[in-house]
């Protein structure tokens, strides 16, 4: 009762956004390379604090309504009708928690690895975390856009400053690709603003009647932004570059959260605002998604670089997500959301595993490894487990989402379901073949012979991730319960034509 009372009065969403941002700025001000311990501890405390302020969102969440909860609505730029309007529903709740959780992991993952400009590194991730949460909870179009685009700046810096040898190219490609997409979305937002009689409110846009032709234009403008961010084939090429060059923390955030911003955009904006165009254009999206699942899955098999392999597998997994959205049934959409959360854990864990190896060998080439199990048995346990989850092994979180999407796809059209199901085979091929080449066999060279097994810190991080993946795989009900009402309401909304 008291927590419910508190949930109506305490602006938890504002805290969720601004606690990490303010903490990040604080760390910039007081942290430095001369005082690494202070900087690191402060960052960890900030990340934990940022996570704790999101917990009341879950405990105080009401599963039975599709309405927005924890709503904050204040005028922000009155001359312009821009509101500071926040709220969560079953669709966005998990991403808020996931973002705050992953930030803790990122801080821990960079603990000893990052030795130069520690304060800036940690601050960039904390600020980024706040901005991404902002995207998930913004209910004002302009606010959404501002958060969406502001995330580019810290990520650009993260890739460019702490990245690998080709980081400048990767950072530019990442930035310009995503900016191109989002600028077109801005024009679409302004068009909607004009049509809605000067309102940026996303829920007003949901109910705004629109003719078919503008719907199609808006759909493609949104697609430009979200497809790049997801990323969908054929605009996915920035992702392998960015992943390969980014530091481990950057890859983790990129895969676990940033890609979800695009997918979330489809759910929050494309489907409800332009339902008729979404239904009419679903063939295109389904085709692109299947290409991502099958073709990119095959591309992943032949990669020599572990990070690139996981990056391509991310594209394939996100293909499942977009497929699930555009078959318009409960199993598909819920499966896609579960898949998003699950991919947040699994891909993050995969990049953490690769980070563990990279920190020791400074190589991501599969051919430089072999027989790692002989020197790092504890590590390989985790590595095999996460690879299995990546391939969609039952009892891991990877299975639940993919299974639900395939089920939904079969309901929609058997052949689409069949094609989508090949992903399980492809996923197993690229994941397990990589594991085989890296972990098993004879010890390949002296470097591998000298490897040290996981430190306690690494063990702890991977252990938490493993627990999360297992829990979600065995008992997914808390996840689907939260989103069920909202997804039903969304599908109901989409089925009502706006014409």
């Amino acid at each position, binding site marked *: 009762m008291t927590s419910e009372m508190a949930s109506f009065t305490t602006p938890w969403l504002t805290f969720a956004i601004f606690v990490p941002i303010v903490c990040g700025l604080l760390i910039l001000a007081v942290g430095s390379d001369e005082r690494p311990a202070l900087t690191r501890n402060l960052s960890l405390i900030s990340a934990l604090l940022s996570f704790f302020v999101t917990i009341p969102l879950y405990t105080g969440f009401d599963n039975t309504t599709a309405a927005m909860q924890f709503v904050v609505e204040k005028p922000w730029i009155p001359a312009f009708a821009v509101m500071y309007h926040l709220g969560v529903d079953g669709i966005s709740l998990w991403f808020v928690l996931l973002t705050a959780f992953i930030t803790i992991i990122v801080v821990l993952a960079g603990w000893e690895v990052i030795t130069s400009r520690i304060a800036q590194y940690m601050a960039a991730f904390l600020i980024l975390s706040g901005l991404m949460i902002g995207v998930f909870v913004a209910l004002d179009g302009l606010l959404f856009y501002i958060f969406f685009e502001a995330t580019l700046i810290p990520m650009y*810096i993260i890739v460019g*400053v702490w990245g690998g040898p080709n980081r400048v190219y990767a950072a530019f490609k990442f930035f310009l690709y995503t900016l191109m997409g989002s*600028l*077109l979305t801005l024009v679409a937002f*302004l*068009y909607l603003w004009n049509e809605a009689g000067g309102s940026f409110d996303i829920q007003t846009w949901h109910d705004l009647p629109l003719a078919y032709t503008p719907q199609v234009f808006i759909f493609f403008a949104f697609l430009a932004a979200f497809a790049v961010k997801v990323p969908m084939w054929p605009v996915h090429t920035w992702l392998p570059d960015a992943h390969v060059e980014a530091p481990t923390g950057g890859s983790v955030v990129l895969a676990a959260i940033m890609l979800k911003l695009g997918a979330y955009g489809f759910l929050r904006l494309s489907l409800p605002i332009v339902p008729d165009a979404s239904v009419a254009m679903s063939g295109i999206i389904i085709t692109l998604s299947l290409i991502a699942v099958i073709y990119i899955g095959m591309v992943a098999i032949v990669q020599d670089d572990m990070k690139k392999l996981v990056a391509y597998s991310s594209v394939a997994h996100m293909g499942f997500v977009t497929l699930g959205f555009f078959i318009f049934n409960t199993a598909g959409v819920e499966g896609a959301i579960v898949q998003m959360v699950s991919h947040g854990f699994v891909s993050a864990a995969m990049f953490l595993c690769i980070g563990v190896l990279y920190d020791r060998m400074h190589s991501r080439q599969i051919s430089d490894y072999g027989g790692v199990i002989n020197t790092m048995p504890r590590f390989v346990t985790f590595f095999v487990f996460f690879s299995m989850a990546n391939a969609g092994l039952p009892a891991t979180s990877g299975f639940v989402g993919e299974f639900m999407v395939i089920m939904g796809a079969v309901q929609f059209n058997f052949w689409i379901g069949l094609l989508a199901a090949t992903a399980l085979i492809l996923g197993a091929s690229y994941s397990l073949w990589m594991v085989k080449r890296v972990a098993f066999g004879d010890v390949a060279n002296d470097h591998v012979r000298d490897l040290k097994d996981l430190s306690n810190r690494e063990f702890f991080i991977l252990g938490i991730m493993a627990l999360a993946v297992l829990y979600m795989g065995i008992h997914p009900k808390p996840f689907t319960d939260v989103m069920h009402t909202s997804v039903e309401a969304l599908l109901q909304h989409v089925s009502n034509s706006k014409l």
Partner: protein
Amino acid sequence: MMQSQFDFGLAAPEIILTVMGMVILILDALSSGARRTLAYVLSLVTLAVLAGVSYWQWHIGLVGETFFGMYIADPLAHLLKMASYLAVALTLAYGREYMQTRDMLRGGEFYVLVLFALLGQMVMISAGNFLTIYLGLELMSLALYALVAIRRDHAQSTEAAMKYFVLGALASGFMLYGMSMLYGATGNLDLRNIADAVNSGQIDYLPLTFGVVFLVAGLAFKLGAVPFHMWVPDVYQGSPTAVTLVLAAAPKLAAFAITLRILVVGLGDLTADWQPMLLILAFLSLAIGNLTAIMQTNFKRMLAYSTISHMGFILLGLASGSLDGDKQFDTESYGSALFYMLTYVLTTLATFGLIMLMSREGHECEDISDLKGLNRRSPWMAALLLLLMCSLAGLPPLVGFDAKLLILQTLLKSDRLWLAVVAVLFSLIGAFYYLRVIKVMYFDEPEAAAPAMATVWWVPRSLIILNGLAVLVLGLMPNGLLVLCLQAMRATLAF
């Protein structure tokens, strides 16, 4: 509110500045010293007094015209003048040490010329008649020509001064020719009488449009819009940075004011004629400005091309008024352009100010590569420049984004969707070269271990930090300034 035909109270800021300019000139001639402290302090005091007077005029709602309509005092004039004082004061504060270490403060003429240029701008801002417009324009231009040439023994500066003088004179000629055409057609020099004459429908159309073409060309010269932009990069690069800032900040505000007064107030009935011209200028400025900026290695030259592209955006706003004289619609369109101009000037001030603060004796911080590894050497300056570059690129949550958003909004309201898309695509191209500056600061290793900052007094240092933060804070809370811009514009259009 009708005052007597000679209300000197309305023109108090100009009168005070004229007197003080001459006083400073005389006192400076009697004083000596390398830093010219007396002239500096007096200039700042003058600006503070002016700000007080203009604020008071604005606060009591002083609106009116005097000297037979030659001089207008309205909220727009007060707002632009206060912005100009701020721009000039910041320029002086940032530029003082720079000028001194380069031996350009042997006499106090830097301060005096800047003040007289400001006087010219104020006359332009308050002008209601072609004669006052031209008077202000020439007063400003002559002072600026001398300022560009202030580094007498420097070849590049001299070249820049010559270019600026020749092209500036050409532009003035264009303007004058256009004015004479309109005078011939309407028999009037007063903007409001011209508006009435055009409105009567009894004026021969041909000389009118002819005059408009020349006026627009002259205004485009002053704003630095393509294809009349050739002087901008050379002058920006060639002038001492302090002078570049004098040129880049306050004069733009005055040019904006006369553009608005001539085209909207005087020739509002010919909107259908001049609007397409502005659109072409805007499109070309966006295209040439952004594309050419990519090629630049000199930071100041890059910023010059970036200025050109920003003028393109402002012209888009100025070209989005209604054709049927819908006051509300016009207020919003031109108000957006005003907001863009004010915030752009604010950002420019901080950017060039940083360049000056980072230039040491014997080492001009002019090439983009001079910024290499700035994050290592001076993380706070790098963070500040990061904010400024992001603002110029139009990224949220900085003020450059709000400004661009307003312009895009007016474009959509005037059913120019395709232009909005074009503007957005050129912003994307523009983002590239701003990002490159960030890349050089953050990703590259420093070449020299020397600290980035010259030993600068704490006042300009803190001012520049405040200036940079203003770009962020205004970006987060643009409402106040936006409302001011809309109010000022509404009053001017209704007047």
